[in-house]
């Protein structure tokens, strides 16, 4: 981790000094080591503040579209974050020429709230970046564990029990929209839930309107969710949203044979079709 931090600082400094990029999106010190923050370095001296440790879970791809089109940006990405960058490229939201991608191969990141290790059995099952210009460190061995094992328990439940589970979880939602704000794929302006006309979902946190918001969000992320798990870590009520996103991702992978953000040449599954798609998927 320390080596990655040093290399990250060096590369950021070089890129900013040579003027290759205008901004470096990486991690900066928060109020203590356990709480690093997303950080945008804009001058060579800023790079002193860049940190990298096991608590740097944030998906920096979230911030790519905050800059005017044409801004040259360097971005530090872990495995899943690079997939998010790929999805944004597929959707033509950002331009590859304006990007310098600093890949960080890493395992053993920790959730700052619980100190639990984040691994393939929960979220972030991609340890190595899928797309990068500069790789900071050695590639790490890929885990054999399926990212979907964690779903087994829920999948085996009867429908009514799953309803009880989700009703309990989603009823806690206070509609702070932290999940949406943390999500690299949620860039719509305005978000459907903020629209006054048509009013898709009521704004007050009741179970029905919470379902309306979350189910629609799960659908909007179908075939796009890169399983970084930031929504669940951002959630102040600790709702395991990642379980639902994983399930939708799994179904998309099974039905359309393509995982989100693995290659820039792929077309997102929901804006694509194959004549041979089976009608059975509708059953």
């Amino acid at each position, binding site marked *: 981790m320390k080596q990655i931090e040093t290399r990250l600082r060096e590369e950021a400094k070089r890129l900013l000094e040579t003027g290759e990029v205008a901004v470096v999106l990486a991690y900066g010190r928060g109020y203590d080591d356990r709480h690093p923050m997303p950080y945008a370095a804009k001058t060579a001296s800023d790079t002193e503040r860049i940190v990298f440790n096991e608590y740097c879970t944030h998906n920096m791809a979230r911030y790519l579209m905050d800059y005017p089109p044409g801004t040259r940006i360097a971005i530090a990405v872990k495995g899943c974050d690079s997939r998010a960058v790929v999805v944004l490229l597929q959707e033509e939201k950002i331009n590859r020429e304006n990007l310098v991608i600093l890949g960080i191969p890493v395992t053993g990141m920790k959730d700052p709230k619980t100190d639990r290790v984040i691994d393939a059995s929960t979220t972030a099952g991609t340890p190595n970046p899928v797309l990068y210009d500069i790789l900071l460190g050695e590639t790490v061995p890929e885990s054999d564990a399926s990212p979907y094992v964690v779903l087994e328990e829920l999948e085996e439940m009867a*429908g*009514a029990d*799953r309803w009880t589970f989700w*009703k309990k979880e989603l009823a806690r939602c206070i509609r702070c929209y932290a999940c949406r704000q943390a999500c690299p794929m949620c860039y719509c302006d305005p978000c459907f839930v903020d629209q006054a006309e048509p009013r898709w979902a009521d704004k007050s946190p009741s179970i*029905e*309107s919470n379902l*309306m918001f979350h189910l629609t969000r799960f659908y909007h992320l179908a075939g796009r969710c890169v399983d970084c798990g930031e929504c669940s870590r951002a959630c102040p009520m600790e709702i395991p949203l990642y379980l*639902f996103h994983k399930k939708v991702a799994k179904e998309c992978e099974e039905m359309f044979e393509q995982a989100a953000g693995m290659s820039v040449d792929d077309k997102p599954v929901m804006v694509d*079709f194959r004549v041979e798609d089976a009608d059975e*998927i509708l059953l």
Partner: protein
Amino acid sequence: MEFEPKILGIACNWCTYTGADLAGTTRVQYPHNIRVARVMCSSRINPSFIFRAFELGADGVLVGGCHPGDCHYSTGNYYARRKLAVTKKILDFAGLEPERFRVEWISASEGTRYADIVKEFTEEIKTLGPQRRFAIRKGADE
């Protein structure tokens, strides 16, 4: 009193809606439980329509489109197929009775088939009973 379900039908203008029209003009009898909304193409259907219908108390939702390959816009129903398949999986995983949501390809000449499907679906919903999970208007379950 027997339970009379409320079913939302969303029909594509070119096939299913015309098929429903044919059912009407040929005087085929079918249950009045279905309320049909017309859209220009099944791919116009936003999955939130379906969630919203359930939220507002629909007991079932029946979506009708052209047979694959027959779409008036050539490819609309291929996109719709993917979108509605994911919608179904989402309803299933949330435990919201996916049987209440059904997609059928009904062409403009299949008036009797339209009537048969509506009959069958209405019977199915009747056996399932009122939808009380997602519905605001009917009060939450228990």
